[in-house]
């Protein structure tokens, strides 16, 4: 039986309370009668034999690419780049699909006699990963074969000798990427596409780039002119990456792209109720919800965080495609939308969403307030094609504890951004003009990025810019159950309950507003007409 598609439910009196994420916990809320709840589609069936699918994709590439074995020869320089720990969410159970793909590529390279192989984690300006995190992605076999010899590397965008400037695009954008990748005879990039923004030319042009290059598309103007940046045809972010990707190809860099997609199996069995629609909860689902909720109520915050961070998703692979970048990405996007797409008719006055404990940038650490903003206004708000779910001037209500808490190892520049920059202004354009460069070039942040496990100094700016389109579009943002001081520092309004938040929202959108609840995760892509 094929999985049921996502759908939009209208809340009536018989509808049980809706489950809403709230950081390391969740709440049940009775939404007003007449509200809409947008549910993601059920998980699509996985590939029966991912290893066979990988091999098939490598031997039958898309676009004008030759099969991978034909591109491999003894004496060549081969670089394999792969997505970092920000994908997928939560981290998937072993074996990670990247491990399977990398092993298949290495097998073919070995058969061809290639012995100059370097692996590069495509961090862009993300934090360096720890050994266990790297082992989880590439597997012990690959790690032990490459890491001790310095052949499993992590991209260092601040290494003056490790970057190569490939010139400017026809719109004057600097293209500067990892020197090893740029000077290899073949660059294989191994992706996981969790959302349509991932993959395509963004893989190399962003994942292996420098600040000098990234600033051309990771900026406020780009974000404000993308409708949305999950829609590659209406995204300035994509346009710029595509220009850069084509420039990279024209510069002689030979990229063999491999993109994989996953199904919606986001949570393990004990959290099965999170994947099901409330009115279909079985006795087992109810018991699961009660057991998890009650134990979370009694669990200290830090312990709850560590429990959630240890979750490994039972994601299964739904497609593997390889070959020429644009052809590969087009097909991967189709698979992704087949899993996540939900048709929604018309916009709403008020959009509500529960934010979970995790976003791409706090794996194994705390979700700080800036990441709360980014997850809500940057990611979930933008999970649309066509039009935003909420009308211009509408209100967004998010549910999250939003603690005034930061991981000083992973997010040192975030602390200063929150304490100093946001204390002065929350306007993305003003922030960009006044502060970005000084954070981006701060030697301490650069030191921590290069030698520790810190996100680059400019990263909190990018998180803020990610929400620039939503800030522009919305009439107000309310956070339910958040630390009031932290919420106010973000420029939002705190509410103690959903009922209070709805009353506050009526100040923005008027009485009797229409309300739509985005029931994620698992993720969905609203196709709003």
């Amino acid at each position: 039986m094929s999985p049921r598609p996502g759908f939009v439910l209208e809340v009536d009196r018989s509808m049980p309370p809706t489950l809403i994420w709230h950081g390391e916990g969740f709440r049940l809320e009775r939404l007003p009668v007449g509200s809409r709840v947008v549910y993601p589609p059920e998980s699509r069936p996985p590939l029966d034999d991912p290893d066979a699918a990988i091999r098939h994709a490598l031997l039958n590439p898309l676009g004008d690419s030759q099969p991978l074995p034909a591109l491999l020869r003894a004496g060549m320089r081969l670089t394999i780049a792969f997505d970092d720990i920000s994908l997928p969410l939560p981290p998937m159970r072993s074996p990670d699909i990247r491990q399977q793909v990398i092993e298949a590529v290495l097998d073919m390279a070995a058969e061809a006699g290639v012995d100059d192989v370097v692996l590069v984690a495509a961090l862009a300006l993300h934090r360096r990963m720890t050994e266990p995190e790297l082992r989880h992605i590439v597997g012990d076999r690959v790690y032990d074969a490459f890491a001790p010899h310095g052949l499993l590397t992590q991209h260092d965008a601040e290494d003056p000798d490790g970057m190569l400037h490939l010139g400017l695009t026809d719109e004057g954008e600097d293209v500067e990427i990892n020197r090893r990748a740029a000077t290899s005879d073949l660059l294989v990039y191994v992706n996981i596409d969790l959302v349509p923004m991932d993959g395509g030319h963004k893989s190399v042009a962003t994942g292996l780039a420098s600040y000098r290059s990234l600033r051309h598309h990771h900026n406020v103007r780009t974000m404000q002119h993308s409708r949305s940046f999950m829609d590659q045809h209406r995204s300035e972010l994509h346009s710029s990456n595509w220009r850069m990707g084509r420039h990279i190809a024209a510069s002689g860099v030979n990229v063999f792209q491999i993109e994989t997609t996953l199904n919606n199996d986001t949570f393990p069995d004990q959290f099965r109720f999170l994947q099901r629609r409330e009115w279909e909860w079985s006795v087992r689902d109810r018991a699961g919800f009660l057991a998890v909720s009650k134990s979370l109520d009694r669990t200290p915050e830090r312990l709850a965080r560590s429990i959630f961070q240890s979750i490994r998703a039972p994601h299964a692979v739904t497609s593997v495609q390889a070959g020429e970048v644009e052809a590969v990405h087009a097909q991967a996007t189709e698979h992704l939308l087949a899993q996540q797409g939900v048709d929604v008719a018309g916009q709403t006055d008020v959009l509500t969403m529960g934010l979970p404990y995790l976003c791409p940038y706090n794996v194994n650490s705390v979700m700080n307030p800036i990441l709360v903003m980014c997850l809500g206004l940057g990611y979930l708000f933008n999970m649309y094609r066509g039009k935003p779910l909420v009308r211009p001037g509408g209100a967004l209500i998010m549910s999250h504890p939003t603690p005034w808490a930061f991981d000083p190892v992973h997010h040192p520049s975030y602390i200063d951004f929150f304490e100093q920059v946001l204390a002065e202004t929350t306007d993305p354009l003003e922030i960009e003009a006044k502060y970005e460069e000084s954070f981006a070039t701060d030697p301490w942040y650069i030191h921590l990025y290069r030698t520790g496990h810190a996100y680059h100094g400019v990263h909190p700016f990018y998180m803020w810019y990610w929400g620039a389109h939503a800030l522009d579009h919305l009439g107000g943002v309310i956070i339910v159950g958040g630390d009031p001081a932290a919420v106010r520092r973000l420029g939002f309004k705190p509410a103690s309950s959903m009922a209070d938040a709805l009353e506050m929202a009526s100040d923005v959108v008027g009485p009797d507003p229409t309300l739509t609840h985005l029931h994620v995760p698992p993720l969905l892509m609203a196709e709003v007409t």
Partner: protein
Amino acid sequence: MKALLFERNIPRYAAARVVSSLGSGRGVTVAPLKLTDIDEPDLPGPGWTRVRPRLAGICGSDLTTLDGKSSRYFEPIVSLPFVPGHEVVGDVEGPHGEVAGRVVIEPVLGCLARGVDPPCPACAVGDTGGCERVAFGHLKAGLQTGYCADTGGGWSERLVAHSSQLHPVPERLSDEAAVMVEPAACAVHAALAAGEMEGSSVVVLGAGTLGLCTIAALRQLTLPGTLLAGAKHPAQRQLASALGADLVVDPNEVPRAVRRLTRSLAAGAQLTGGADVVLDCVGSADSIEHALSVVRPRGRVILVGMPGTARIDLTPLWHREISLTGAYAYGREAAGTNGARPRTFDLAFDLVVQAGLDRLVSAHYPLERFHDAVEHAGSAGRRGATKVVFDLREQPRWRKTGAAG
């Protein structure tokens, strides 16, 4: 006349130390300070005159005394019993009891006031803050009016002052502005004691009266590159900004802010670089250690707040060759053109006007409510206040102004 008298009473002093652990200013309830009727002080000699205080401020050093926490260092250079109050604007009394002009008192009791002739080397050049005779001459020991048994102090209806201590107050100045001249003079001296400042990164720790006046003095009299202030309370933060700080942060955020400002690295809690100059307007062990951790190698730390006894790790002082210096009182400053050395108080008058420091006067109390007044001063920052004063004007009244809570 009515006066608040501070007497020698060791048990009460010790009790004040205990009670003040509940909060600054709380020690006044048991301290050896009482409202009493005493004789007006005698004129010590020629050149002396009586002054009727109009407003008299409560200073941080007064709070330290009333909280039983003042250093034993002061024992030989004060004389008991004394009437506190050295931030004074008042009326000079003529020979027949008439008002003969409004003045601010420069409280340091230097050689001229003490009848020491010839004066000590410091007083000879006008640096009265460095007087070497504060316990000698025809006056009892006392480094300032307000700590000397012979002169009286501002927390009373009469005191005596030497003509060298009197600064006429221009008509246009309110009493509130005038009472700020003395703390402003301390700030002027501190700002100028910090030396060459142009283009420097400067940090001011603390945003009480002294910290705020210092920020204003630095902004008006020097040319700092960037002026960063550490302020604990919202009202202090607003005032620090208004008076010229480029960046105001919570005290806990100062190291991070200085690191960002100076693009320094950090090794543990110690910055590898840091600010060129740090003025500590708190004077606690914590604030001094804070200052030493955020000043650059070979930078300058100036103690403006009264430090008292403190246990401090001086390793960074040694390792980074930091200059640690104090800034006490006033005299003359090397700030004039053509080698002129204007009096600190003259510069302070200008500063009070230019920076509008009268806005720092937050609450007025009559002497009768001295418990409330001192407790208010002790919790001023938390209550949104800055300077608390005793109001001794002809029709005694008390009122609250500004954000004072």
